[in-house]
């Protein structure tokens, strides 16, 4: 997989040398950071044997809540409200999945629709402008040569990796995804940990939503269409298995890089966004097929 990423980069770099410029690299990493954060949350969900279809809509909901709160109360209050909105939405999904035992697909599908509706209702369908200029820094600013969103996403990756590979929570996530019944019989409180998984996913969606709102310095109820599917694609392209138990933050990072570089590279060589979608679709299927073929040969 890293070879693929390098290969893509070389190809695009050859066609348009601008690819390698510092500004472009900064742009790509900035643009990827939103997807990266969503993909981290999605990794938890998929590894645990579930899925979170609502993260795209959560971007919109978080954006609206963040913007409205920011206008009324202030910068910090707005950011906090945005993060809270994502987390609470995740908590609700988690409750439905863990306590009411509704399958994750259905529960998060419901949240997808409801969250989008909530975003549109709260905002009246209109964008919310008039946010303080300082907020833009979160989305467009730099720390040294690195865009702030990139730094945030990178930190999130490291944190998530530690959680997944080195804490009990992480281990239980893998166990639940591998064999939920055996996990119960091993004494793991599956219900609680499932809730924690979706709270995590919601939190990361909240973070992504706040950063995205900063980038466009307005609350936008139409954000995030289809992003949940890309977050799933990132997890799967990298090698995570959709049924759970296999994958990790490292593999998700690969998937995010592939999607990010593809999107940016294809833009730079002026391929239409419609064709880009076809290419990405083919890659999703191709990546999973290769993974399964390797598996079958064992």
């Amino acid at each position, binding site marked *: 997989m890293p070879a693929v990423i390098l290969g893509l980069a070389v190809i695009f770099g050859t066609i348009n040398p601008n690819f390698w410029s510092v500004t472009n690299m900064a742009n790509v990493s900035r643009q990827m950071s939103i997807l990266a954060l969503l993909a981290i949350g999605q990794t938890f969900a998929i590894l645990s044997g579930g899925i979170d279809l609502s993260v795209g809509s959560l971007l919109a909901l978080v954006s609206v809540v963040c913007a409205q709160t920011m206008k009324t109360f202030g910068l910090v209050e707005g950011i906090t409200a945005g993060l809270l909105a994502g987390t609470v939405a995740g908590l609700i999904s988690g409750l439905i999945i863990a306590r009411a035992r509704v399958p994750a697909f259905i529960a998060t599908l419901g949240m997808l629709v409801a969250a989008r509706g909530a975003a549109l209702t709260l905002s009246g369908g209109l964008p919310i402008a008039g946010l303080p200029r300082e907020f833009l820094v979160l989305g467009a600013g730099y720390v040294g040569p690195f865009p702030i969103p990139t730094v945030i996403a990178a930190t999130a990756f490291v944190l998530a990796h*530690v959680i997944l590979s*080195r*804490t*009990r929570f992480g281990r239980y996530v893998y*166990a639940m995804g591998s064999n939920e019944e*055996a996990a119960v*019989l091993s*004494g793991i409180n599956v219900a609680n940990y499932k809730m924690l998984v979706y709270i995590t996913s919601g939190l990361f969606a909240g973070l992504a939503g706040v950063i995205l709102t900063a980038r466009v310095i307005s609350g936008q109820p139409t954000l995030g269409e289809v992003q949940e599917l890309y977050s799933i694609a990132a997890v799967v392209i990298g090698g995570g298995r959709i049924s759970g*138990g296999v994958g990790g933050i490292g593999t998700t990072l690969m998937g995010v890089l592939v999607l990010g570089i593809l999107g940016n590279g294809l833009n730079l060589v002026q391929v239409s966004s419609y064709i880009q979608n076809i290419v990405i679709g083919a890659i999703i299927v191709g990546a999973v097929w290769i993974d399964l073929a390797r598996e079958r040969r064992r």
Partner: protein
Amino acid sequence: MIDARPFLELRGIVKRFPGVLALNGVSLDVRAGEVHALLGENGAGKSTLIKTIAGVYRPDAGDIRLDGRIASIRNPHDAQALGISTIFQEFTLAPDMTVAENIFLGREPLRVRALSIIDRKQLIRRTRDVLASLDLSIDAEATVRHLGVAQHQMIEIAKALSLDARLIIMDEPTATLTSHEIDRLFESIGRLKARGVAVVYVSHRLDEVKAICDRATILRDGAYVATVPVASTTVDEMIRLMVGRDLKDKFPKTAFDPGEEVLRVERLTRAGVLHGISFSVRRGEIVGIAGLVGSKRTETARAIFGADPIDSGRIFLRGTPVKVRTPADAIANRVALVPEDRKRQGIFAVLSVRENIVLSALRLFSRNGILDLRRETRRAQELVSALRVSTPDVEKRVLDLSGGNQQKVVIAKWLNTDAEVFLFDEPTRGIDVGGKIEVYRLMGDLLARGAAIVMISSELPEILGMSDRILVMRDGRICGEFDRADATEEKILNCALRGVSDPAA
């Protein structure tokens, strides 16, 4: 009615997988109307061989002849077309479809060919014919999910017959059957013989092989060892051929002086499932629980372990009453459950041996919330060598281990939790002779360290060989209790079947 000429002949079959030579020049011949056993330890190559015959694998060398002519079996479809049918351990029935739909799946009689409209009447009629030819009283329109495991087996046989099979391969057919159902199975096999159908019978249960098979071929480490006539070969000889050495102790059982009572359950009840179950277990003793499928033995273990709720009754551990509402409660009280179905309930297949072993006791391996992978690895290695789990290293996926080794990993997991009471549900199911002995030895080690064991098993020899006391359950009740000294197969069966302790009654 055994034809002297072989129906199926395999010569010099070689099959390689990456890193392993599974079959090294194996030969086999099976005659029409014969029941031919295929014996060998786990890893001997039985599974690979039957999959080769069934068309799942293609041999790297050697040839297969049917009726004297070379046969090309490139895939399962070819095998089926040539009259070879296989009934694997994992049944391939669709649980939500009816018996008739399952038997004729993919070959449904059509009323209007172009539109693929199924002729239901013909479907039912032909199903009934097939079932009748095996003297089975299964309803053709019953949904498979509502039928018992034994009946699933019969349906698989019926399905094979409906395909005009001339050779049926059965892989561990009696693993999930009780002795009553095994008798019915043998009757069906008898009828197959009468019709000139050949049967390749793969099983670890040598007493069954003695009962039903005509000849037996033994494999060891992928190589052909011998073919013997079953009637004139003793079980010990068969074992010797399989294992390459003499096995004196089939059931290594050391008697311990039982210590104080560790587990006591009183009047455990769950509406419709358990009715006033009471018994106790002491340190150093094995209490075996026998019974037919459906007697709710597993449910008893699960209730004690907190995996299922109870309506009334009490559980005492070391004399103190405890509330066990979840498996976590049970584990905290030092109870362990090794479940019946390894694959579905016991192992985390895609995780490593190490991860499986440490899972129930992660607290021991975390420092400030962070897991110490080195400590995990060390502990896992300790247990792997103590239990003699055959694996190159602890990072291997449990999925890649043999059944016996997987079971050991499950047991190792519990050894980490300091458990004192072990509930084993069918501990040696699907494990070869050598592996079984290792598990029994392990149980002995546990007892020596002061553990108490409850062992649920459907293999009577195992129950009789290992238990200090035997409980027999029927329909959610304990209907009999025997000491090791006076227990016999008849007494146990009687109890299990009729619910009476004394056969003389």
